[in-house]
């Protein structure tokens, strides 16, 4: 079983209705499954910070959602995270990592090496899934921290989980 299917199953279990995302290779299959699911609305964003505002609106309206993004996207979110922290909107983020493991593009390293600290400074809890076995339990825990703990939480999906990207 592919690791991402465990995230999808956790979304179903948690009754996730809005899935906001910026397309990413590491999340591609998960996003495809969310697009096909009749009970989920997959919402493509132009920038990741939009997603935090969309999910806050969704929560005001009684729906649960999640934000899917790549590590570089976390950098686009910093001020908008204050919306979630100030109002204690539940916020569950699933971040595919770059700049961490056999990275060929040095421009990915800045966010890849610092986003865990950025998220913690912004008030989010983080977990890092290093292996496929970590993913299911950590996805469930990330959703629980957000929706039963009224908090901000992020699951960082280590670059070891992704196929190595090259330009070859």
């Amino acid at each position, binding site marked *: 079983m592919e690791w991402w299917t465990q995230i999808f199953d956790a979304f179903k279990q948690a009754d996730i*209705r*809005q899935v*906001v995302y910026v397309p990413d290779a590491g999340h591609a299959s998960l996003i495809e499954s969310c697009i096909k699911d009749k009970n989920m*609305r997959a*919402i*493509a*964003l*132009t*920038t990741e*910070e*939009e*997603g*935090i*505002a*969309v*999910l*806050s*609106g*969704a*929560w*005001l*309206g*009684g*729906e649960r*959602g999640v934000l899917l993004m790549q590590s570089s996207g976390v950098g686009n979110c910093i*001020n*908008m995270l*204050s*919306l979630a922290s*100030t*109002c*204690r*909107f539940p916020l569950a983020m699933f971040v595919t990592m770059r700049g961490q493991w056999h990275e060929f593009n040095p421009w990915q390293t800045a966010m890849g090496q610092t986003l865990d600290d950025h998220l913690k400074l912004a008030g989010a809890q983080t977990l890092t899934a290093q292996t496929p076995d970590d993913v299911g339990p950590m996805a469930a825990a990330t959703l629980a921290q957000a929706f039963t703990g009224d908090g901000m939480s992020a699951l960082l999906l280590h670059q070891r989980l992704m196929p190595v990207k090259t330009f070859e």
Partner: protein
Amino acid sequence: MPQSPRSDDYPLRRREVVKLLTGTRDDLLVIAGLGSTAWDITSAGDRDLNFPLWGAMGGAIAMGLGLALAQPDRRVLVITGDGETLMGMGSFATVALQAPQNLSICTFDNERYGETGMQSTHTAADTDLAGIARASGIQTVGLVQNQTDLDAALPDILDAPGPVYHVIKVRAEKLDFVLPPKDGVHLKNRFRHALLGDAGIS
């Protein structure tokens, strides 16, 4: 770029406009962008179903989108300023892609950053927010410059199938602050309680 004086003389007054938008319909779900528009909606009556932002600049339209998708049977009205709109213009494309029928967005455009000293925004020059929204894929877009335009636009703002966007040119004026509660958790809980009942705050 010298400061444009033209919005000093625009006929529409924002506090009168907001009364026409939010004063007629108790069932509207209202999001206001930070700054002047948050004070505006409060001046028309602080309602539990108002969510006035005090920060998160650039997020008002996107927040309205999430709310509109979660509550498809309720009319959602986003009222925000030109500076706030400029900071989140990608949201027009995101809204157009989802095309919620129940979402209406108004920018009160005084061509100034009101909270920081009335400096010109880009709309004081040639930037056309209505054109940007239209080109982003929003089908129903209007420019409101006077009372006649506003009277004609009100049915669309309040009831036309969305997404609907209007730029309402308003006078640049310094007005009294009419502040809503600023505790974000309180604003969230009162909104959810009014909309969802006790289940909303359990």
